[in-house]
């Protein structure tokens, strides 16, 4: 069974800082990493393959040529194959156009049993590409998966986290799931994996390689447009409460009683 993991390369937010003068993001020298949620997706795919004792894990990303580095990292963790979807025509895509292009990539990869995505990317935070991709692939999906209970007989049973607990959902394969941090602990790349990843060929598929309508890709295919970007006002003044713990607690309690 082929398991496809979709991953996104994102700026490492542990290094992103706000320029206090201009109130803008300082991205200079900020490293790019695999979106943290996608690490859990890769790990879960590897675990499923190991428990089945067969199969192939393919990692797929849409992005600029630099995103190849993230795919290589996934290969070093143990993924079998990686493909990058990269083309000027794919740039500027919103979640619908991204899912459209990814769906074309998945179609070209051939038969699959499962697609795994991270819950959301930490730069855009939309959590929309997973379910949108499921729709465009015409497969069932479950979001916020915190555990795979079983995978057999062409079906997968998962636990999906809800606001007040969880649901147990059975999906016929092929299917798509998006996973949470709670699902596993991603492994570190092995030395052997790193060596293999270094040498691996990563095909780059552009619009000519995929069965896509260019008008539905990238910026042209994105119904939504960003019209304005601004920094939220940070005029907040922190009122420090002084004194002993008792005195501090007393002042705070009386302030809180005004609010609640």
């Amino acid at each position, binding site marked *: 069974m082929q398991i496809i993991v979709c991953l996104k390369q994102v700026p490492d937010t*542990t290094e992103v800082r*706000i*320029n206090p003068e*201009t109130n*803008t*993001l300082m*991205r200079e020298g*900020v490293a790019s990493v695999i979106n*943290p949620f996608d690490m859990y997706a890769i790990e879960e795919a590897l675990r499923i393959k190991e428990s089945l004792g067969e199969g192939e894990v393919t990692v797929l990303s849409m992005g600029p040529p630099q995103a190849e580095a993230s795919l290589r990292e996934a290969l070093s963790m143990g993924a079998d194959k990686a493909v990058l979807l990269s083309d*000027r025509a794919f*740039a*500027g895509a*919103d*979640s*619908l156009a991204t*899912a459209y292009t990814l769906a074309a990539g998945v179609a070209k990869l051939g038969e699959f049993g499962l697609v795994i995505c991270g819950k959301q990317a930490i730069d*855009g*935070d*939309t*959590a*929309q*590409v*997973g*379910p*949108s991709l499921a*729709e465009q692939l015409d497969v*069932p999906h479950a979001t*916020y998966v915190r555990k795979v209970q079983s995978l057999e007989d062409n079906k997968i049973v998962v636990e*999906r*986290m*809800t*606001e*007040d*607990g969880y649901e*147990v959902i*059975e999906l016929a394969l092929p*299917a798509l799931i998006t996973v949470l*941090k709670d699902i596993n602990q991603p492994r570190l790349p092995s030395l052997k994996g790193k060596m293999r990843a270094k040498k691996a060929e990563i095909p780059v598929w552009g619009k000519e390689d995929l069965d896509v309508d260019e008008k539905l890709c990238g*910026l*042209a295919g994105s*119904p*939504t*447009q*960003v019209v*304005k*970007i*601004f*920094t*939220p006002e940070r005029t907040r003044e*922190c*009122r*420090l409460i002084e004194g002993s*713990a008792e005195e*501090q607690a*007393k002042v705070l*309690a009386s*302030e*809180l009683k005004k*609010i*609640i």
Partner: protein
Amino acid sequence: MGGIKVDLDLCTGCSVCADHCPFGAIEVKDDKAVITDICTICGACIDSCSFGALSREAEEAASPVPDSSGVWVFAEQIGGAIAPVVYELLGEARKLAESTGSEVGAVLFGSSMQDAANDLIAHGADRVYLLDDANFADYHDELYAAALADLIQEEKPEIMLLGATTIGRSLAPRVAARVGTGLTADCTGLAVNPETGLLEQTRPAFGGNIMATIICPRHRPQMATVRPKVFQAAPKDPARKGEIVNLKSPEVALRSRLLERVREQAENVNLDEADIIVAGGRGLADEKGFKLLSELAEALGGAVGASRAAVDAGWISYPHQVGQTGKTVSPKLYIACGISGAIQHLAGMQSAETIVAINKNPDAPIFQVAHYGIVGDVFEVIPALIRELK
């Protein structure tokens, strides 16, 4: 589709635009700004240029916008109870409907929901599209997506709002893809532009460090999920009148089913709906620290949250985690105890109405977003605070 154009005569190569680009998509080569492929045409650079060298390229002839009318709200229910965010959506939908001169529609799927439908009318819906069917009692991705997409294609609303809840964030992208329209996630601001008539949807990105305003100019409906607790709930007026339209169930060959729905013990874990959250971090030292925190939460009638460090240390379970890899919350009151305030944590809570920080380290970044700060030992301050509140 237009991109960003650089007027080479006006550009001085000063690189201010490159610094302002949130996506790192501008390079300066040979003393001129160059827009690279990763540009999303957000326009942040246009405002930053003092020389007027940057502009949006004229767009190609616009395709006609489909006819549509009405501001719709998806009335999510769990176990027959309408989710609190629905009333917030109705309040916002009424304002939007008044500014566009249209009606408010509510879409309700469930079983034995007649009373709930009337309740939606009392809270501002002019029309409730009701699908009352035992198969729709519990949320089901495929069933709900099919029914909602069919209804949208039939009735053509102009605006469709859903709560940015577990259900809303799973259903909305599936439906948007099926009807082929745009969707903006997790909005915290909505307004209709009086000139263009378009819905301007504002949302945080990059963990709340920047805000983006997004439009959906040529596709309908304009769809958005809306963060709970951001908007005021609509007031109830039992005298309000409205219409209930009964819908038929769609025929769908299902490929998934719900086997079980489990509510987990602790009531203090539903962070999404909590008005008050008391959260703990590394400074709480161990599980016992969280016991103390629970007492404070109980005294305040709030839920317990945690930083990633505390969850990773095993002091409390993952559903309590607030921040980039946990939940994003916007309660009325957030009390951060022993949390230093890493950027990933701030991303999940900085939109709270009032933030209180209690921390030993006066330089902890949490104080930069807090309204009230106490520099002190959580093990002294929290017990004293519990005594004061009692």
